[in-house]
């Protein structure tokens, strides 16, 4: 499978066939019973073997929050770091180790509040990282304060009269931060989540995957309209590259461009089918993806899921490695044990061009 992903060509392959079991640790999983994190963990554990990567070359780095316990449950290398800083730590790791597949697991508070700066700069740099942002629109680990994705007026322990700040739309934010890959999925839809993870893994550069995740203790059913069989088809827009953007019963709803180029929701039956906008995840201009990210409001009506944007852009660590290789001319391995010629080069550096001798 991994042969189809040139993005992972520098990561060694597994010698033996793997299963989900190979990625499970002996640690007891300690999320609340019913938490959406279980479903995501199971999806990731069964997805990883499909990449066929050597397990020791896979690293999960997390910040702080419920979701950030994730690395303890993946039998790969892992680091549970500090609040908000996982993208920065993973950047240093990915930039210095092209042979690793580096995944960041973060939450809405971790990524968008305390770590907002690192998130946007990781996306801007396009470091070879896959960022899984578990969005439950609440602070779980600190027991239920509103988060930067909670709806305005959210009543929580810290906002008894309702929260006063408007939420981020993580997909819009990522697109504004020049992300080269942005997708969204839902904890309960294993098949869709897996397909999005695959697309993220196949992408070289930073991939941001927002995963709507249910916190059944502090913000239960936050994404229910997208899950309830009675409403989900009307609420969810399944984005597929090259396909017309339609949804609802029998694909009756769709979007067209109106006279000022804004997206307009229409009854497909009422327009020329050729007018229905076709999804182009590879569009150079991010405004198409951005328009799609604005279709939904906080009520979740018309929520696109799938890959919003997937474009090739120079990758930070590739560029960094290229500069080093060009400077080394002979292709010397960084940090190789010093040989005579390396000692000479170091000696020449230390001496510089203006020396004098005392005899």
């Amino acid at each position: 499978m991994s042969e189809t992903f040139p993005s992972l060509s520098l990561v060694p392959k597994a010698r033996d066939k793997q299963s989900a079991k190979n990625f499970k640790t002996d640690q007891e999983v300690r999320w609340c019973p019913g938490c959406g994190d279980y479903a995501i963990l199971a999806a990731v554990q069964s997805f990883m073997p499909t990449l066929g990567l050597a397990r020791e070359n896979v690293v999960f780095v997390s910040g702080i929050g419920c979701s950030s316990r994730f690395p303890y449950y993946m039998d790969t290398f892992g680091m549970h770091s500090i609040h908000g800083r996982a993208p920065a730590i993973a950047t240093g790791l990915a930039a210095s180790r092209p042979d690793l597949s580096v995944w960041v697991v973060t939450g809405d508070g971790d990524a968008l509040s305390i770590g907002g700066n690192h998130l946007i700069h990781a996306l801007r740099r396009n470091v070879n990282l896959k960022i899984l942002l578990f969005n439950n629109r609440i602070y779980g680990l600190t027991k239920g304060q509103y988060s930067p994705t909670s709806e305005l007026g959210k009543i929580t322990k810290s906002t008894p009269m309702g929260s006063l700040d408007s939420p981020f739309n993580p997909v819009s934010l990522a697109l504004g931060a020049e992300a080269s890959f942005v997708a969204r999925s839902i904890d309960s839809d294993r098949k869709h989540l897996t397909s999005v993870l695959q697309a993220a893994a196949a992408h070289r550069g930073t991939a941001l995957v927002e995963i709507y995740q249910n916190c059944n203790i502090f913000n239960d059913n936050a994404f229910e309209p997208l899950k309830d069989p009675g409403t989900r088809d009307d609420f969810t827009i399944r984005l597929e590259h090259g396909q017309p953007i339609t949804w609802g019963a029998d694909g009756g709803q769709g979007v067209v461009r109106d006279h000022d180029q804004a997206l307009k929701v229409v009854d497909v039956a009422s327009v020329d089918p050729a007018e229905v906008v076709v999804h182009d995840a590879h569009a150079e201009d991010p405004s198409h993806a951005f328009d799609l990210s604005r279709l939904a409001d906080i009520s979740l009506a018309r929520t696109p899921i799938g890959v919003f944007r997937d474009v090739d852009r120079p990758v930070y660590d590739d560029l960094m490695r290229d500069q080093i290789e060009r400077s080394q001319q002979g292709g010397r391995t960084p940090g190789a044990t010093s040989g005579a010629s390396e000692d000479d080069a170091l000696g020449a550096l230390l001496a510089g061009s203006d020396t004098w001798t005392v005899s």
Partner: protein
Amino acid sequence: MEQRDRVIIRFAGDSGDGMQLTGDRFTTETASFGNDLSTLPDFPAEIRAPAGTLPGVSAFQLHFADHDIMTPGDRPDVLVAMNPAALKANLGDLARGADVIVNTDEFTGRNLTRVGYAANPLEDGSLEAYNVHPIALTSMTVEALKGFDITKKEAERAKNMFALGLLSWLYNRPTEGTVKFLKAKFARNEAIMQANLTAFEAGWSFGETTEDFSVSYEIKPARLPTGTYRNISGNLALSYGLVAASQRTGLPLFLGSYPITPASDILHELSKHKRFGVRTFQAEDEIAAVGAALGAAYGGSLAVTSTSGPGLALKAETIGLGVSLELPLIVVDVQRAGPSTGMPTKTEQADLLQAMFGRNGEAPVPIVASRSPADCFDTALEAARIATAFRVPVILLSDGYLANGSEPWLVPTVDDLPDLRVAFATAPNGEEDGRPVFQPYLRDPETLARPWAVPGTAGLEHRIGGIEKADITGNISYDPANHDFMVRTRQAKVEAVAATIPPLEVEDPSGHARVLVLGWGSTYGPIGAACRRVRHAGSDVAQAHLRHLNPFPADLGEVLRGYDKVLVPEMNLGYGFGGQLAMLVRAKYLVDAIGYNQVRGLPFKAEELATVITNVIEDLS
């Protein structure tokens, strides 16, 4: 030609007058001549403060001699003042009888008023105590450049080279280096290059022909230990030390950094050395800079983050994570005057307690401090040694004075540098239910270091984090006894470093000293020079200088108790505890250390320290 054994020159002018460049060039000429030297650049944080004002004055002081010297000097023998502001700002530091070379073209009514001169000091007799040389530097430069295809402004700008030419003649400096430098610097602009070369030569010729300077001076080369020398600044030496450490450890160097005065030159310098496999990452902020470095350390790099005091504050939480993860990390703090933004371009050594205690929980880290510009090379290697051998973040303290100051450096032979090779874990180190397992917190019994198990090593997959870990397995643990054990172990690991550092060197030539002067960091030069003065005057005094601030050398307590009085001069106040180092040695050894504390943003003067030392000695008798 008159012989002198040492000279202190200060070049002072407007921020835009090119005084730092002029000082640099004179320093390089002096270094290649073979004098011992020490420099002190002193410039404002503003890139171009309003012209002609006191805050806009930029100065460069150089002390050079025919013998080994330890400081940039207290009182200049020569001041080059490019305008009234430069004269006013610097006159108070001069010795009586000093030569004052002033650029008369700038002594206009407006310029004089701007800095508060009611009358022209060149005319009102107020400079009688000095040997004033009024020279029309600007107009003579413009005159010399007549016929060049450049603007008047461009011609005026070359006046610093005229001044450099004059001073080069006055002190018989070799000029080939400057000629070469100017040709390279202005290679793309022939007219400007020729103008600068001509101005430089005109300054030299003016010295030869004017009768204003009755003599020129000769300062013989210093008799330093044999070997090859170069001139080096602290930031450059520190950068080279890191490159050398990378080669000697066999680990690729990774620098995560965010620009900050006065540490940025380390980022600039290391970014040039990709040929040595150096990766430099200019992060979005100080936290990301140390975070990326820690990530690279996890991946097996020799990881460094460089900053100044405000940045160290921001990095505190990540350094604590490094302590908990027990990964090697070098944190360079080029200290500057604080608190808060403080005085970015002025020096201070007030981050010792921040380095020591500035993290949550008990998060001990080894601390190493550089004592001179060239010593930054050795301390960088030492920080790398400790970090990699003990798997711990190490804080390396330099300061603004060391960073920008320079001195001759006996260039080491690569073979003589310490062998710092590091072994990563390669295989499981334990057994569970009869199968091999990897135990990330199983320690080396001597260093207490845990294995450095980098991703990509089969069989060593493991998870670590900032949550307290169980001894040996590294699994999450909230067990009370385990936490107590782990806190003690992390402390013991730092203390174990003491067994690998040499005994404290004490300089006490007569062996009869009753007073010990104890210092750390950049006060080494001024304290050493002050001790020499005191001894020269017939008193006995001992000097010891700490390179390791945490842990202290094992014999420090014994050394301190061997003297009747211990004096600790520091460029910090010490929060009411008599000095930051003084507080630490008092707390640890119950020694009545006497602090001498100044926080002026400038290095100590040897003269003032000599007086302080003499007073302490006299109090004893």
